């Protein structure tokens, strides 16, 4: 047995979240230093601790690096079109309100191309949990500017510096009606997992912004290129202000080292979730009903 093989032998002990990952999809496509892995990990842990059966969890993603998250999670999962994860997930959540539907996607996907769906789903308080991985740029396509790119930062489409102000996503979510709003970073995995768990309890539209490094797309162009550069920034500059009364001024500027980055569970006000008016008996299709459907399907010649 070679030394490498011997080492592998040791590593195979298994991990508590193994059952929540699609092993046959690994290795993943993400770059070294990417923050999406820890988010997937926190989500997977939360599913296991949620007290809800895995089969009741659904994961929906849009397009981009973060959009690939759904592909690694071992629940019913959907990798949809760019920006449309939220209305797609709305269809699932409204059709079957017993499911816990989580949308994991990126800042560009959810708030640029998908911005309209985002604000209306929040306004309606649709029973969806949104985990928005904010890496300040479009990573998959190679580091273009996003609505979250800090003013002055360099991206492949802002070679002379970004002249636009950046979206404060948590402020946006609160303003448009989310029931729960939090901002954490992938340095704060315990708090992030607790926040995700909380959103799984709350019925209604919840929003968690997760600050995440993108050394390849964003870091290299902005003096944050080492795998640890942004993790250090999260460690050194983050301040926690749970329940912050004013999140408007708490804009994240990852490139300005003089400014703190404020994190926390900003809002937790559960209210009646969205549901269309239904007066008649609702069509219900849990596993038992599906079994019945299969039975009629194969017993009934007319439908063969």
């Amino acid at each position, binding site marked *: 047995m070679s030394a490498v093989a011997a080492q592998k032998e040791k590593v195979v002990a298994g991990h508590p979240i193994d059952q929540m990952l*699609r092993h*046959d*999809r690994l290795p993943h496509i993400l770059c070294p230093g990417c923050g999406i892995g820890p988010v997937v990990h926190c989500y997977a842990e939360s599913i296991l601790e949620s007290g809800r059966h*895995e*089969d*009741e969890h*659904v994961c*929906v993603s849009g397009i981009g690096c973060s959009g690939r998250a*759904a*592909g690694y999670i*071992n*629940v*019913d*999962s*959907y*990798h*949809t*079109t760019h*920006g*449309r994860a*939220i*209305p*797609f*997930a*709305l*269809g*699932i*959540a*409204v*059709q*079957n309100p*017993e*499911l816990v539907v989580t949308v994991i996607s990126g800042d560009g996907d959810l708030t640029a191309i998908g911005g*309209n*769906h985002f604000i*209306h789903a929040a306004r309606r308080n649709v029973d969806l949990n949104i985990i928005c991985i904010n890496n300040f740029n479009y990573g998959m396509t190679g580091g273009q500017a996003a609505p979250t790119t800090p003013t002055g930062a360099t991206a492949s489409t802002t070679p002379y510096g970004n002249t636009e102000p950046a979206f404060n996503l948590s402020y946006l979510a609160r303003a448009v009606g989310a029931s729960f709003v939090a901002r954490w970073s992938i340095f704060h995995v315990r708090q992030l997992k607790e926040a995700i768990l909380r959103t799984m309890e709350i019925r209604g539209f919840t929003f968690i912004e997760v600050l995440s490094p993108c050394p390849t797309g964003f870091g290299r162009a902005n003096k944050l290129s080492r795998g640890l550069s942004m993790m250090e920034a999260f460690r050194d500059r983050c301040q926690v202000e749970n329940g912050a009364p004013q999140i408007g001024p708490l804009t994240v500027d990852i490139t300005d080292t003089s400014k703190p980055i404020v994190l926390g569970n900003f809002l937790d006000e559960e209210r009646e979730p969205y549901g*269309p*008016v*239904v*007066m*008649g*008996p*609702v*069509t*219900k*299709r*849990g*596993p038992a*009903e*599906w*079994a*019945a*459907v*299969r039975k*009629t*399907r*194969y017993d009934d010649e*007319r*439908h063969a």
Partner: protein
Amino acid sequence: MTTETDSAAPPLEPRVDTGTHFMLGDHAVAEAALAADLDFFGGYPITPSTEIAERLAHRLPRVGGKFVQMEDELGSMASIIGASLAGGRAMTATSGPGFSLMMENIGLAAMMEVPVVVVDVMRASPSTGLPTMLGQADVLQARWGSHGDYGIIAYSPASPQECFSLTIMAFNAADRYRVPVFLMMDEAVAHMTERVVIPPASEIVRVERKGPDKPPGEERFLPFKPGEDLVPPMAHAGEGYKVHFTGLTHDERGYPALNVPTHESLVRRLVDKIRLNADKIKMYNEYLVNDAEVMVVSFGSTSRSAFSAVHEARARGIKAGHLRLITIWPFPESRIRRIIKMGNVKKFIVPEINLGQMRREVERVTSLPVIGINSAGGRMITPDEILEVIAK
């Protein structure tokens, strides 16, 4: 019917409004959707399809279905795909500008093989065009509107009664072939009020989706492994099979497989599952075809003028015949070839309220002269206009 309910309470009103009605085309679509067990409607107001949404907003909640007015047509289309994947029968209704916005997710539905019904009530176009007036110029968009190659099914009703029957068939075809199905109405049919006979609920056939034949966990379920008919079985969110769906090129497990052989076989199957099943899917109506020397080919409301013109031509001793396309996609080309083989036809006439979209399809299958009678939209083509060309 295999709809389970979680409540002993009966619906406030029946899903199937059995009886003889004097009914608007748009309303006939809504009533048919209810009769076909529609679970979820996601839509956005747009003339001239809005009456479908309005009728369903009133009726669907009373039979236990869900009506959602979305923020735009991008969201409408995405929401019905989600609802279908969660096990519901789902539809939307729109018109040209909204249809254009839906194209992105129509491609997703084709790629993910999700059964959905999309009603497009065609108005005069392009762009905003004549919003309240008729057109038939979205028919090629229905076939080719989203990027890439894929197969779809599209029906074209010529009367409110047919709006009812074809909507039921659209739901069944969508579930049977795991494909987006279009009901391509034109404004004249949508806003036409006529006799509509709605049969008893027991006479409304529901075709179920193919599903896994083993319970979850017994063996790996492959949601993209087709049967002999090229249609794969389907499992839904919450059913327990831990499915993965993606718009990326995917293998039989549904996992992204970004390589040429997988792409080649997947895309060819998406096209072939409609192409090779076309004989089972396609529908048309014929009138005096066997000895016809002049064949009029039409669809939608234009068929009413065409029928009248052919009838009148026969009265004048001209051997005219009429082929009315009920499915415009798949295009019934084999039937047209057979009509040509009979040896009598000397020319085809294709009246349509666009500048020659379906005429191209007829030209594709024959070297005989194909004459178009066209209007850019906003008005019906009259029987006299057609008769004049028949008589030439």
